[in-house]
Structure formats: C-alpha cells, structure tokens
C-alpha cells in the first residue's frame, strides 16, 4: 500500500500547515484589534490639531512659514513609503510598492528628482533588489509605532523642506478603512495644504485670545501636524498589515481544509480499491483450488 502511505504523509503535512495558518490568523486578529484601537485613539488629537490650525491660519501669516511654502515648480520630492517588516500578508506589501512605483513614475515623468525613504524590511528588500537608491530606511519600527518614531521619520524631511532642498513630500501607506479594505494611498504631507476657506468659515469665526501670537502658535503647530500625519500613516499601515495577514491566513486555512478533504477522499478510495482487489484475489484463488 505504497500509495496509501504517501497520501497519509501528505495529509499529515497539510494538517500541520493548517495548524500554523490558523494560529497566525488568530494572532493577526488580536493584533489587528489592538492596532485598530490605536488608530481610533489617534483621532481626537488630529481633529483638534486641524481645528486649531484652521482657526489661527490666515493667508497673510502663511508667507512667513517655510512649511507652508508652496513652490511653483517641484524639482525635488521625497516619498516616504511605509511597508511591513514581515511577509505572509497576501498582496499587502506588493500593493504598497506598486502604489509607490506609480507615484515615482508620475513624479519623474514630470521631471522631478525623487528620493525614497522606506520603512519596513519588505519595501527595503524590493528596492534593493531592483537596484534603486534608498535615501534612508528604517526597519526598527515595531507593531506599536509611537509618535517618537513618527517624529524621527518626519523631522529629517521637514528640515529638508524648510531649507528648500525638497519641494514636496509624499507618504505612501495603507489606509485602514476596515479590516477588509486597506487600500494603498499616497498622501501629500508637505507643503501643508492650507485649510480650505469653507472649513475656515465654520471653524474660524471665533475670536480666540492667542498667546503669545498667531504666528508663534502656527509655528509650533505645523510640525506637530506633519508628525501626526506620519504617525497616522504608521498606525494605519500597521492595522492594515494585520488585517491583510488575517485575510490571507484565513484563505490559507480554508484552502488547506479543502486540500485535506480531497486527499482523504483519494486515500479512502485507494484503500477501498485495495480491499476489493484483495477479496477478488482470495475468491479467485479459492475458485482455482476447487476447480
């Protein structure tokens, strides 16, 4: 029963694989919940920040801030790509890399020099493989991104932008709409888009006492705003990664179950066929003796 033993081995091995994928699915589910909470917890901060910026913003103070500088031609741009450190998350990293490449092609097509800052081992590995220069890379950002991580990432590009070495900064990350939908998006972080007029109409018609002055407050808040945008990108990407991994592992578990069913059926059929054959042989042998 050589074939039977072989099948048994395969069933065993697929069962073991299923055990692993099922565990990974459960781990990703619980990690995703925590990451999701972090995304939600970050919301009030972003909301207040935006509101206060639009209430102190006015176009006459804007000219004095390097972070609000709107360059006419974009000569140099930076892309901050957020990927994960680990794989086995379906198309998660591939989608992010594709989005980043699309953005690079678009920018370079318009004659913009583009530099790349990569977060996560997966993105770094890809750009190393195709031989593209990566200006800075970070692989030390864990499952729990902190605002300090975001600050260290964004401060470099903010300085370059303020000094005029960069004219635009984009961040490419996975937007966390829900566990099922985490599309890659690119968002422009710098120059900071001044709050739209309508938004200002609603939020701004409030005469705040401003200490020490509108300029000082704006000067302090703009970097916070940029950092927060980067922090949000990290937090959402992390939640998205866990969501993508959960979906991928769920599919893998289902596929493994299906495969096991198929293999069991083949195994049983082979066993049945062997028994039938043995009976036929015995009957045949007995008939031979009688004859």
């Amino acid at each position, binding site marked *: 029963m050589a074939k039977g033993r072989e099948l048994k081995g395969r069933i065993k091995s697929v069962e073991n694989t299923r055990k692993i994928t099922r565990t990974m699915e459960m781990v990703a589910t619980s990690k995703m919940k925590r990451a999701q909470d*972090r995304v939600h*917890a*970050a919301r*009030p*901060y972003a909301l*207040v*920040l935006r509101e*206060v910026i639009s*209430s*102190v913003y006015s176009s006459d103070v804007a000219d004095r801030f390097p972070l609000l500088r709107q360059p006419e031609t974009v000569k140099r741009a930076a892309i901050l790509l957020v990927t994960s450190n680990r794989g086995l998350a379906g198309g998660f990293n591939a989608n992010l890399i594709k989005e980043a490449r699309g953005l690079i092609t678009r920018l370079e097509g318009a004659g913009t020099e583009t530099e790349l800052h990569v977060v996560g081992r997966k993105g770094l590995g890809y750009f190393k493989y195709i031989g593209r220069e990566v200006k800075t890379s970070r692989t030390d950002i864990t499952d729990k991104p*902190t*605002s300090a991580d*975001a*600050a260290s990432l964004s401060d470099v590009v903010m300085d370059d932008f303020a000094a005029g070495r960069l004219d635009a900064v984009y961040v490419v990350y996975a937007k966390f709409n829900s566990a099922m939908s985490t599309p890659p998006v690119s968002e422009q972080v710098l120059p900071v888009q001044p709050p739209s007029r309508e938004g200002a109409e609603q939020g701004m018609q*409030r*005469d*705040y*006492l*401003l*200490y*020490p002055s509108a300029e*000082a*407050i704006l000067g*302090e*808040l703009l970097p*916070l705003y940029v*950092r*927060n945008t980067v*922090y949000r990108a990290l937090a959402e990407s992390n939640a998205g990664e866990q969501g993508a991994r959960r979906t991928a592992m769920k599919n893998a578990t289902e596929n493994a179950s299906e495969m096991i069913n198929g293999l069991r059926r083949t195994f049983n059929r082979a066993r049945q066929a062997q028994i039938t054959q043995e009976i036929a042989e015995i009957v045949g042998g007995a008939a031979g003796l009688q004859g």
Partner: protein
Amino acid sequence: MLKVSVISPEALLFEGEATSVVAPAFDGSLGILTGHAPMVTLLGNGELRLEGASSGGKRFTVDGGFLQVEDNNVRVVTEKATAL
C-alpha cells in the same frame, strides 16, 4: 464645571470634568475657571493640575503643545504628557 480633555497623539489621556485647571503656559502658570474667554495658548513644560476632577485631583506632566478654551471646554493637546 469645566469639561477637560487631555489629548496626546497616541491616546485620549483624560476626559471628564474639573472645577479649575492650572496649566504650565509658555510664560508661567495659567489658571482657568469656568466662563473663561475663548483662548489658544502654547504650553511650556511643567505640571498640569485638574482641580476637583471627577476622579479626585488629577496631575500630569506636560512638555510643549497647546491648550484651547472654548465654552467651558478645555482641551490640552501635547505630544508628551504623562499622568502623575
């Protein structure tokens, strides 16, 4: 009563009521009682005290950020805040 929230990038650290707030503004301590005019001010570093907070007195150390007052709502927004 004042409605107070202390917000950091990672989480909402406190949300509740207090009778008064003493905050470390950029140029020295700043006290806020009910009926304060709308105001936005930068913070320095030091201790933030929420007097008569729903769960007793609450204290935080803050470093930078800002404070917004509007209709008896006080929002303290800072990157670095730790509860004491």
